[in-house]
């Protein structure tokens, strides 16, 4: 009983254990790995993916899947920079709000198709991905922009805190703050709001949700607008953190995010998943990538590792389903 509690509702415990193991092994293999610098580096490298993963979590819990978020993200992030350059405008906060808004507007295309026409989400979002990316490069721009507005440049270099140790300075980027806040917000949304519970309900059984009076169309609309907004926000964060805007970025890296959410215990069939699991899943993938890079392993192994991890994650889930508790019928002969 205690053990199963430790394991967590969505295997969170297992994941945490795996992460600790990986960190310890890396600490032994690569001295200097354990330290604030690595921590800050890993956090920095997972912020964008985590933001996307939160959006993906909400979509997956609602029973869908979204592969258009990278296109939406880079459209929003790049588009905002282009707009700021054209207007000669500068700012720190409002560009993010605008990027999120842009993302939500683009997400409404998914919302209309999924909520309005009840079409399969994978295929709808594949279509949206093509449209959004095509529109970005055909109509917004295709140039690599190396100069960001000053406000964003400054933000990119702002630290939440910096720790100087013998090995160098570990800088925790300021952008970790909004992402942490987002994690808390999404967790609250999913756990403690009617909207959040409706998302779980829809993911469990859409028809039942409709029948108890949950406005399925509205909830789904929210889900895809919200995922779009998070994608937009994450897109500008990617641009800011890398201090350059490249319209060819991000698209093609959907799997890492989907994999992280699935490894984090969310069920692809909907209705299950948690923010904690997602955070752990993103961390695990970031750590694996980081460790493999550190050990000089070619990037092809990363693909292989992520693919295998996904299979492992969903395989475990599938096996867990099979071993579901069944109520005994038989009155066994008492001995």
């Amino acid at each position: 009983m205690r053990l199963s509690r430790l394991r967590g509702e969505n295997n969170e415990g297992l994941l945490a254990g795996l992460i600790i193991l990986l960190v310890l092994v890396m600490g032994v293999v690569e001295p200097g790995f354990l330290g604030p610098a690595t921590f800050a580096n890993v956090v920095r490298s997972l912020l964008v993916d985590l933001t996307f993963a939160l959006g993906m979590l909400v979509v997956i819990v609602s029973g869908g899947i979204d592969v258009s978020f990278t296109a939406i993200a880079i459209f929003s992030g790049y588009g905002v920079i282009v707009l700021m350059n054209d207007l000669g405008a500068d700012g720190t906060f409002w560009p993010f709000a605008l990027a999120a808004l842009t993302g939500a507007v683009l997400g409404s295309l998914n919302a209309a198709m999924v909520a309005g026409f009840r079409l399969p989400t994978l295929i709808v979002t594949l279509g949206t991905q093509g449209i959004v990316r095509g529109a970005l490069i055909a109509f917004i721009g295709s140039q690599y922009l190396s100069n960001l507005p000053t406000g964003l440049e400054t933000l990119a270099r702002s630290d939440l805190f910096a720790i100087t140790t013998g090995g160098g300075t570990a800088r925790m980027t300021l952008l970790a703050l909004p992402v942490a806040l987002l994690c808390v917000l999404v967790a609250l949304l999913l756990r403690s709001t009617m909207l959040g519970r409706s998302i779980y309900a829809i993911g469990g059984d859409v028809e039942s949700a409709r029948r108890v009076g949950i406005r399925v169309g509205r909830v789904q609309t929210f889900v895809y607008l919200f995922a779009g907004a998070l994608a937009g926000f994450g897109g500008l964060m990617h641009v800011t953190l890398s201090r350059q805007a490249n319209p060819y970025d991000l698209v093609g890296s959907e799997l890492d995010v989907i994999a992280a959410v699935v490894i984090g215990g969310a069920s692809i069939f909907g209705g299950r998943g948690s923010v904690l699991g997602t955070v752990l899943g993103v961390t695990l993938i970031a750590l694996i990538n980081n460790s493999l890079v550190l050990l000089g392993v070619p990037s092809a192994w990363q693909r292989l590792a992520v693919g295998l991890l996904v299979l492992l994650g969903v395989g475990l889930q599938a096996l867990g389903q099979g071993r579901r508790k069944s109520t005994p019928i038989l009155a066994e002969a008492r001995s």
Partner: protein
Amino acid sequence: MPETAIVLRARGVRKTYGGVTALREADVDIRRGEVHCLAGENGSGKSTLIKIVSGVEQPDAGTITLDGHDVGRLTPTRAVELGIQVIHQDLSLFPNLSVAENIAMVARVASRRRLVSRRDAMALAKATTERLGVSLDLTERASNLPVAQRQLAAICRAFAHDAKVLFMDEPTTALTWREVDALLALVDTLRAEGLAVVFVSHKLEEVFRISDRVTVLRNGEVVHAGEVKDLDRPTLVRVMTGQDVTEDRDVTELPPDTRPVLATRGLGRRHEFADVSFSVRAGEVVGLTGLLGSGRTEIAEAIFGMRPADTGEILVDGEPVRVRSVHDAIRAGIAYVPGDRLTQGVFLGQSIRRNLIAGSIDRLISRTGRLRDKAVQRTVTTAVESLRIKTSDVAAPVRTLSGGNQQRVVLGKWLARSPRVLVLNSPTVGVDIGSKEGILQVLRDRARAGMGVLVISDDVPELVSVCHRVLVVRRGRVVDEIASARMSVQAVTDGLTG
């Protein structure tokens, strides 16, 4: 009985699906504190009416008033807010959520609150179960509950929120005899609290036991509305079907030396059933009854290889056969009509033709795997004619057929193989009286032609009407056998409730 105020009134409700008219100008009045029965054959429009007054479907014409006010365009949300509650036939629970949260969900939606907590859900669920006197593990996931408890959860959910009108669409089909009793008692309590309960059922006993008034639909039209006490059984059957139907025992005794076609010896499966030994002779119809959750479905599915037995053996025509899979069972000449027609029996969107050949593809292909067109045609035509499936086009999807005809298609799928043994699980559930008699007649005919038939059912009059013998299952074991000589409704009922 004094006339109480009308809570819900539907006037001139019309609904067509494509070309099918499901409801035409239907009028219904539901009064406060009454139990109102909606009766009618399959496809007569009962469910459609419920869907319309609960906002799930929009009517093409007609008005609905609640407490005298026109409700306008109804959505499920609006209906819940107005106090209209439905327990759908499929329960509509959320498998991934806890029982407590399932129970609280309707009340949460209706309260329009934006913030919710687990604690509130638990408190509400506890209060509701206590009020109704049911015991449920509230922290368990709904998907982990047995069917009967899920039914209870669905009922609790409907009661957790203050409702004015409660619709129950065939709530007893998944329930056993004893659970039905408990449910009906509950309905009595609700009636006493002033709630209007609308009850859909094909089982006439229930209608007579519980209802105050009845509205009978036929082909989407209201053909009768009035007090139940003014009706007797034959009259009700006549209004429903437009004809007289008998339910008498019609069984031809077999010569004593008839050999068994199916026998089981010490069949068992861990945690489910044990020591199951019985036989079915050629030409015999054997009933297998027991409360839901007694293991009767598990026994049938073990014989069919769906969830194979761990111990014991199965004999067909006296020869032991290894049944490890459905394929093995079919090859041994065993066929099975499953209990849940919609999810296990038919392919709704596929043509009648494809449904009919689904069970005998292996026989309809040439050595190269090609389907033999003529053989397919022959199979389909034979099934449609011999089972009198009402359709003009076998290429039309099964979805377009009524429930009874859909069940005939499932039967036809297996009869096409002429199996040695036909196992049927609740073959007439959700089938109206006219079709039911037709289906039972098919079973008798096939038995007379030498097939062994095993019918799982808890519809006692049906068992009495068609079976040579009835076996009673309790907690995974066969505990009683009612032979032909002592067969009666009373005897079977006693065995069941034992």
